[in-house]
């Protein structure tokens, strides 16, 4: 009797999780191996690895994979680094700290698509205007660049810029509170002992907040791998045509995109993404674990 009681308490949650998490997960796994699955007739030709072969050979998927990796590798370190700099700056100006913290937090509460619109205005070249950024470039003697429909690197630049900007507030918030929770006496002790500012930062501040930095890097990686809405906000829904698709975007297209209706390919792509995220997270955890050994 005593053994049953805790399970009874957990039952509602378990039922919901089973119905809406576990079952679909298993389903996705099954779909990814069913060749030629038709969602209308619920039939398939056979079982095998064909879906994976198809997805991995699909140039759109390769492009999406490439885009996603570039996005992750550029934005995660960059945004964490910038957030750390800003958090350190905030910490050293006690007077205006609250004001600036609010300003820096604004992007976090702003809708992704609204922010996308703002970025369009900043970067998009239309018949009437080259956009604010191009006006700046022209001012310094450069020639206009089409960031939205132009060369690949320009589009990638905008996407990275946008991603960094949108994830900064949360990271700043986490890092300022991490910095504030460091025992001030440690800094006093360091001061008495004549520790230089750089050494205080590298030998005291960084180790003390490193758990938070690792947390941000891991969640940053996962978040960036799942990027999709940001790209849509900037380049519209036809991401394949723009060459700016992401893995999640590819999955969406396979399910509902133009032709749509390829749940098996979508499932395969989803599992490939899952494998990638799992690997990166495992590597991250191993690295941070060995760095933080007690």
């Amino acid at each position, binding site marked *: 009797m005593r053994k049953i009681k805790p399970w009874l308490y957990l039952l509602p949650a378990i039922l919901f999780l089973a119905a809406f998490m576990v079952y679909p997960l298993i389903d996705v796994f099954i779909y990814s191996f069913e060749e030629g699955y038709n969602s209308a007739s619920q039939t398939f030709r056979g079982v095998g690895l064909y879906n994976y072969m198809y997805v991995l050979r699909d140039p759109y998927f390769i492009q999406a994979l490439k885009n996603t990796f570039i996005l992750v590798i550029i934005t995660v370190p960059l945004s964490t680094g910038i957030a750390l700099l800003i958090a350190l700056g905030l910490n050293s100006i006690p007077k205006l700290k609250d004001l600036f913290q609010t300003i820096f937090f604004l992007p976090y509460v702003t809708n992704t698509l609204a922010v996308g619109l703002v970025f369009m205005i900043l970067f998009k070249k239309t018949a009437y205007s080259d956009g604010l950024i191009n006006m700046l470039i022209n001012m310094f003697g450069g020639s206009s660049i089409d960031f939205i429909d132009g060369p690949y690197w320009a589009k990638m630049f905008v996407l990275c810029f946008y991603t960094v900007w949108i994830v900064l507030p949360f990271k700043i918030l986490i890092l300022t509170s991490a910095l504030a929770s460091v*025992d001030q*006496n*440690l800094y*006093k*002790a*360091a*001061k*008495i*002992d*004549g*520790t*230089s500012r750089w*050494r205080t930062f590298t*030998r*005291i501040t960084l*180790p*003390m907040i490193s758990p938070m930095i690792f947390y941000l890097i891991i969640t940053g990686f996962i978040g960036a791998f799942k990027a999709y809405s940001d790209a849509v906000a900037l380049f519209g829904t036809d991401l394949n045509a723009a060459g700016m698709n992401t893995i999640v975007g590819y999955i969406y297209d396979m399910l509902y995109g133009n032709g749509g209706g390829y749940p098996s390919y979508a499932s395969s792509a989803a599992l490939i993404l899952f494998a990638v995220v799992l690997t990166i997270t495992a590597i991250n955890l191993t690295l941070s674990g060995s760095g933080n050994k*007690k």
Partner: protein
Amino acid sequence: MKIVLDHLTKRYPNRTKGEADVIAVNDFNFEIPDGKLIGLLGPSGCGKSTTLNLISGLETATSGKIWFGDDDVTNVPPENRGVGLVFQSYALYPHLTVRQNIMFPLENVKGKDRLTKEQMKEKALEAAKLVQIEMLMDRKPSQLSGGQQQRVAIARALVKLPRVLLLDEPLSNLDARLRLATREEIRRIQTETKLTTVFVTHDQEEAMSISDFIVVMKDGIVQQIGKPQDVYDHPGNLFVAKFLGTPPINVFEGKVENGAIVVNGERILEIEGVEDQDVYVGIRPEGFLLDEKGTFHCAKKQVEVMGRDTSIVFDNPASVSESLRAIITLDNRDAIGDTVCFALKPNKVEIFKKDTEARIDYTVKGA
């Protein structure tokens, strides 16, 4: 290295308009002799920690000067003053081992004075041996007990051979038994290193037991400076008398009248040399003698026996203290009636002015 505090004042501007500034330390004058151990003592908020921070350089004085020997260090930043500071919370770097913690100050040194790695290790080991933690060098602070952490903190403060050692409430995070042992340990380390040492405490027993001098502070103002026993025997005012000693001194409303101290209408001690006036009368718990012919009558409340001490808790209409207590030597405590008669040891009785609460000197008649 003697330390001279010359009219030292620290004033914090008040944030709210119209209110007065907070004066944490008010006109502090004292010359701390070379190689002595000084206890700064007072209730919380009395300015003792601020004084310590002024000496360390973590705070800058509003006015006044600080001298280390012949050097004016008033405007010298903390890292150039050559002070070792032990924090109340120890402030050990939690991610570094004991050895790395102790070596940290040495690694900060740049230029030609910088030691080689081997010399640093040697110095760190020396400091660790002094505080007897050399077997814990590779542990992290979280793996140490409070007392051990304290020793690491002291070793870290000593390793750079400071001119002055400062301790902020060094014993307050330790349990009672460890506190006894550690305060003797601090005394030993201080005697061995011959460092001029200043420590802050709110525990009068701690200050009295190991200091060469104690400084009693209240509201930023120095109340009395002296050798512990002198301050205890001759408190300068009622505050000092009440602050020093456990159980605390018993205080009564009374007056001096016709050559005697009168409490509750009874002439409890015949004295000379004091004009008639209203006074506070303070009597140390050990100043009472059970005596049938004693002139001081009080109502017994209860008798407590704690180890070697027997104390009588009693009541008197003229009392100002929360409770009155006399420590006596007595074997047959059943003999104590409901009304107790006390005779008094004259050197344990103090009188204080009613208005300024300053102590009044008197001589005992016939002495």
